[in-house]
């Protein structure tokens, strides 16, 4: 039988029961749309995390207090729980030549009120002027604070781009006042927008000198982390070792009571988390594709029984078993292909809507499209095969006597 005739016959019989065909297409369409949008959500998150981590400065090492337990990953470390990083630690590694800048950081969430009356809950980060170097922060208006201000406990603040707008609307925030936990700070600078990425919005935080942070807000002399900028990628491992041995010496311990991560470690960990997450979501979405496939099988079985006589007639007229088999499988594949095509379009639309309205980066990868096509054509093949086999095996006599 010619392919063109085969396709015509398949389309003809699908057209003869439009509602049933449409419902089957719908099942596959929803499955494919779910798979495509889930994968693009995952891909989008990966891209945005990569971007944000890269934008935080390359060649960085970050020292966290506490030890990461094997298998539990960096995210689940008791970061901030252990209190081991102090000013002494900065001094202990200051003279490593390959280190360009050291940024000690203390973070807490606080309620902030501006002098125009706006009220926000945001992250307050205590740091030094080196924070801006290590973290690639660019000033948009005003200035950053200097070492003198750090030493003298100056109550000055630099605002992230977004929080500046939230606290002061369109008013220029420079030289205005904000109040954090009853302490007044003078705004001396606003950062350029960095954009939100992944889980963190890097425009929604306020930087103040860590000296003030520790004395007035966090109430102790410890840091949450120390970020170190290394002069070259090639020296990262060396610096990691140097830092580790010096801090162990300083802390007088045999096993490190802190952890040193590189940018790549963090990226790899986050990427693997997102991969797992994406896989899980796609798997759940994939189940709906399987359900769609079962729907097709159900529909094809019904349609084969209904067409018993027709199949008998076709065989009497000279159709081979393989002609019948191919026609029924093709019908199933046509349904899945249509469903897949519309599903991909729908999935892309959903991805666009997610990124527009939920403000989450999505990325429709070719990979997602190819996976969907491959999976749904296989679904068509697999779930069409059994009904087709049954149709092909029909005895023409039985079929013709069937009244």
């Amino acid at each position, binding site marked *: 039988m010619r392919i063109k005739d085969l396709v015509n016959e398949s389309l003809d019989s699908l057209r003869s029961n439009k509602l049933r065909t449409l419902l089957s297409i719908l099942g596959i369409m929803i499955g494919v749309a779910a798979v495509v949008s889930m994968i693009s959500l995952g891909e989008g998150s990966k891209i945005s995390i990569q971007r944000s981590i890269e934008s935080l400065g390359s060649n960085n090492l970050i020292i966290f207090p506490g030890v990461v337990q094997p298998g539990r990953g960096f995210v689940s470390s008791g970061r901030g729980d252990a209190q081991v990083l102090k000013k002494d630690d900065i001094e202990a590694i200051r003279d490593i030549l390959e280190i360009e800048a050291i940024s000690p950081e203390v973070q807490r969430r606080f309620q902030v009120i501006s002098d125009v009356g706006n009220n926000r809950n945001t992250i307050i980060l205590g740091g030094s002027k080196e924070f801006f170097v290590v973290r690639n922060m660019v000033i948009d208006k005003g200035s950053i604070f200097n070492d003198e201000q750090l030493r003298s406990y100056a109550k000055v603040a630099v605002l992230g781009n977004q929080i500046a707008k939230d606290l002061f609307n369109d008013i220029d925030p420079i030289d205005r006042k904000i109040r954090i936990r009853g302490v007044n700070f003078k705004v001396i600078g606003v950062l350029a927008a960095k954009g939100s990425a992944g889980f963190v919005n890097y425009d929604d935080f306020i930087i103040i000198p860590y000296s003030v942070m520790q004395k007035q807000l966090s109430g102790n002399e410890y840091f949450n982390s120390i970020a170190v900028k290394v002069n070259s990628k090639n020296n990262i491992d060396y610096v990691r070792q140097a830092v580790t041995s010096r801090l162990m010496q300083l802390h007088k311990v045999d096993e490190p009571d802190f952890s040193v991560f590189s940018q790549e470690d963090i990226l790899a960990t986050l990427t693997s988390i997102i991969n797992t997450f994406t896989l899980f979501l796609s798997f759940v979405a994939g189940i709906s594709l399987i359900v769609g496939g079962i729907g097709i099988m159900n529909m094809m079985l019904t349609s084969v029984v209904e067409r018993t006589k*027709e199949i008998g007639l076709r065989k009497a007229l*000279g159709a*081979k078993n393989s002609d019948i088999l191919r026609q029924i499988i093709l019908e199933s594949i046509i349904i899945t292909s249509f469903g897949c095509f519309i599903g991909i379009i729908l999935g892309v639309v959903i991805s666009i809507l997610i990124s527009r309205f939920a403000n989450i980066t999505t990325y429709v990868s070719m990979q997602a499209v190819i996976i969907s096509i491959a999976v749904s054509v296989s679904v068509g093949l697999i779930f069409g095969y059994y009904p087709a086999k049954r149709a092909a095996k029909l005895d023409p006599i039985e079929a*013709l006597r069937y009244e």
Partner: protein
Amino acid sequence: MIKLENITKIYKTGAFETVAVKNISLEIKKGEFIAIMGPSGSGKSTLMHILGCLEKPTSGKYFLENTDISLLNDNELADIRNKKIGFVFQAFFLLSRKNVLENVILPSLYANNYLSFKARKEKALECLQATAFPLDFIYHKPNQISGGMMQRVAIARALMNDPEIILADEPTGNLDTKTGEIVLHTLQKLNSEKNISVILITHEEDVAKHSERIIKIKDGEKVEDMKVINRKQLYHK
């Protein structure tokens, strides 16, 4: 052209055995018009299915143009049905979603000689004309035409691949006498003009009288094989 040797067909349903065809031997020559006649349940349809290569006998040999049918596989049998045999059924068996023309074209989809759409259409029109089907109705669906017209469509469909034999199982069973007569004359005309062998299956003496030779069967057995005297016919060879 057709030679049956001791053909027996036994159906087994659970513990039951039905002998539908019993030890029938028979020869049919090219261009012959024969009738197989017998009461209901006598095994006529079973015999026709065996002759039409739709079914294999339980025992006995069937030679079609000197080919032993029992040696052929499913695909080869399908090819024979497609090329050499045209079926006409009592219940017409037209596909309701296809129009007259598409129904006639259907067997050519399974043929090995791939004709263009245009050639198929021309061939189908030729076949419809051979059955005197009114060509104004070729785009009508089967449910929009009369029973007599439907049976002519079915005959045209049987002609589509230029068969050697037409097997007609009670072709007039669903038609009134007058319409039935027209269908029988159509078969006679095809038999005499195109030299197609016709095997007509019926339980009515009147219908059987349109053939040249009647084979009577009863309870699956051949009881009589006789020439028709006073054949009813419009067309003469």
